[in-house]
């Protein structure tokens, strides 16, 4: 494997960025939607291949790019979910074309934006330069804004507008924080490019001015926290998930939220290196817990199936943030596992929800019922997804939540009571909905689903296997990253 990677004319890091970049103009140029959907799958597959090759490639620490254990697993995860979603999207958009919700012109644009988003997320993940990381997240945000508004219904435009305004404000504040970090690091490292390199900043964290560093973190927290969807900065998230195309909801929840959390964690690592700066962990714990509890209560009031799972995403990002806030090897391990599992399971759920919405012609929960009699295969996939996401065994989410609760009890017993309360509330809300959707009396129109269930069940299978057995190598790896996070 290593020889193979060494023999490549370009390093896998370049390829991870290059494939989406090539795909954008190609996909804009092609008007046949079947061909462009196929090419979208092909390019996403190539990116995944490059991501896997990255595992065998040597680690990099340059002024602009960095590959370490932390981001390498997120790159592979991003490329994998990006690939399966592109497969799902190919079957999903056929139906949207038939019903006239999308026109071929918009599809060209949709595929190009999909690749732009994937490329930008990869850029944010591999960049060592904190400015470049910001650019990646900004471009990814703009690409998703365009896609959320693509149906051009009043609801979609309202959602995209809200996402755009809140997203830009968040990203603006994050940039202010980035400048502050540069100011504080340039006074120690010296001005120029190295002062923006994350690994240099971490190496000198102890010498940096703690007050300025704390101020910078507050800006970064509000800025990137908006993108993670932490309450109270979450207002854009349910609308954006509900009104955009379902493949976009899947990648938003499964990937973009993760990438934003990743950015936040990078800065937490800087603060952890300075004993006089504010305690980033305590802030993350609070925000995580608030998001979890808030979302858990909100789950009971949802009437739209995609909004329901959007709030569930807020809940799960809250859990992961709480885990990283507690810190320490075990909680970080749980947080990383939770990020991975949530990403796989939530995108699987959105795949199922997309099929359901297409079959029933609506997203209103009140009109979706009796799925087990009308669409048995889909119903099984959907039910397994919900069982997995609420944290019931034997799926991977159970593992990560169990690990988190057990380690949190010894460290923060009172907060853990709240954590468990939030988990149980969310479990109740989702199982209640599941009951109606599965076993109610079938109502409304119901069309057969032509799309393929392969991406859905592949994701669920991985989550199931991870819940039963994690490979030794993966455990060692997660441990290494957890130690890195401090």
């Amino acid at each position, binding site marked *: 494997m290593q020889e193979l990677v060494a023999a490549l004319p370009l390093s896998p890091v370049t390829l991870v960025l290059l494939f989406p970049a090539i795909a954008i103009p190609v996909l804009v140029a092609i008007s046949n939607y079947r061909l462009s959907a196929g090419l979208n799958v092909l390019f996403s597959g190539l990116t995944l291949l490059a991501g896997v090759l990255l595992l065998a490639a040597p680690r990099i620490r340059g002024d602009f790019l960095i590959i370490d254990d932390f981001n390498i697993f997120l790159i592979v995860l991003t490329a994998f979910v990006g690939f399966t979603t592109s497969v799902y999207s190919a079957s999903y958009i056929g139906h949207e074309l038939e019903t006239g919700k999308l026109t071929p012109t918009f599809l060209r644009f949709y595929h190009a934006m999909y690749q732009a988003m994937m490329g930008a997320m990869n850029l944010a993940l591999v960049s060592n*330069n904190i*400015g*470049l990381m*910001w*650019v990646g997240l*900004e*471009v990814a945000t*703009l690409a998703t*804004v*365009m896609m959320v*508004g693509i149906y*051009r219904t*009043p*609801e979609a*435009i*309202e*959602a*995209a*507008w809200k996402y*755009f*305004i809140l997203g*830009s*404000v968040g990203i*603006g*504040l994050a*940039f*202010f924080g*980035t*400048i502050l970090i*540069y*100011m*504080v690091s*340039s*006074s120690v490292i010296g*001005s*120029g*490019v190295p*002062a*923006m390199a994350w690994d240099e900043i971490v190496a000198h964290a102890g010498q940096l*001015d703690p*007050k*300025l560093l704390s*101020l910078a973190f507050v800006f970064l927290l509000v800025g990137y926290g908006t993108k993670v969807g932490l309450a109270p900065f979450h207002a854009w998230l*349910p*609308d954006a998930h*509900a*009104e955009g195309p379902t493949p976009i909801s899947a990648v938003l929840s499964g990937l973009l939220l993760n990438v934003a959390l990743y950015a936040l964690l990078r800065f937490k690592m800087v603060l952890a290196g300075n004993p006089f700066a504010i305690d980033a962990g305590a802030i993350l714990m609070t925000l995580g817990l608030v998001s979890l509890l808030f979302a858990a209560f909100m789950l009971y009031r*949802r*009437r*739209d199936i995609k*909004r329901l799972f959007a709030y569930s995403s807020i809940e799960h990002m809250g859990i992961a943030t709480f885990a990283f806030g507690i810190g320490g090897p075990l909680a970080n391990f749980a947080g990383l596992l939770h990020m991975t599992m949530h990403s796989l399971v939530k995108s699987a759920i959105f795949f199922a929800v997309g099929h359901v919405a297409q079959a029933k012609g609506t997203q209103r929960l009140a009109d979706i019922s009796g799925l087990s009699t009308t669409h048995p295969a889909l119903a099984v996939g959907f039910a397994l997804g919900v069982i997995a996401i609420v944290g019931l065994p034997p799926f991977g989410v159970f593992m990560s939540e169990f690990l988190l609760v057990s380690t949190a009890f010894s460290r923060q017993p009172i907060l853990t009571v709240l954590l468990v309360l939030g988990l149980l509330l969310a479990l109740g809300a989702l199982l209640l909905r599941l009951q109606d959707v599965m076993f109610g009396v079938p109502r409304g129109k119901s069309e057969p689903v032509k799309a393929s269930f392969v991406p859905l069940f592949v994701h669920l299978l991985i989550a199931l296997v991870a819940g039963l057995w994690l490979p030794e190598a993966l455990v060692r790896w997660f441990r290494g990253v957890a130690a890195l996070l401090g």
Partner: protein
Amino acid sequence: MSPLWFDIAHLFAAGVLVLSLMLLYQDRITAVINVFALQAVVLSLSVGWQSIVQGAPHLLATAFIALIAKGIIIPTALHRIVRKLDVHREVERVVSGGLTMLAGLALVALSILLVQPVVETADPVAREDFAFALAVVLLGLLLMITRRNAVTQVVGFMSLENGLILAATGARGMPLVVEVSVAFSVLIAFIVFGVFVFRIRERFDTVDVNVLERFRGERREHL
């Protein structure tokens, strides 16, 4: 550094801030756009001066981008949009002017109080600039919150970006990579905004965001 140089840097940065405050009480859309254009010009002067003071020629490029893109091209385009949509005579406000101004002044005081004691280590030019920049960012936010018109919200966002550029140039020797990308992102932002403004017009015959809010997904259920 001689006090005069310092004072001039101060003057320009404060000019950007004053124009931000002026934006708050403009009630005509055309006036909002004009004040924004003026702010971009003052910003480019400030950036240009920083480039001389810091001996950093690459900042001249940033100043030039700010002047051309935000001082000329974007305001011209916005004027055209506004005329096309026939909203150039519109007057709009949510919170009364006096209250908005008071809130704006409070934000300026807040940012000075926040930044001054914290940024002791940095050189004085950077410190003053930074307080101003933060104030401009917060005032941009305030403008976006208090106005309901899509075009004014665009201007609020871009004025927020002006504050970011002011901060970025105040930080000595910040690499050009970032500045170019900021200009780039403003451009994208503008395209997106343009697209939305037109789509909003197409659908509802107005650029008033209040109309949009009737279409919030779940609210329909309660009607």
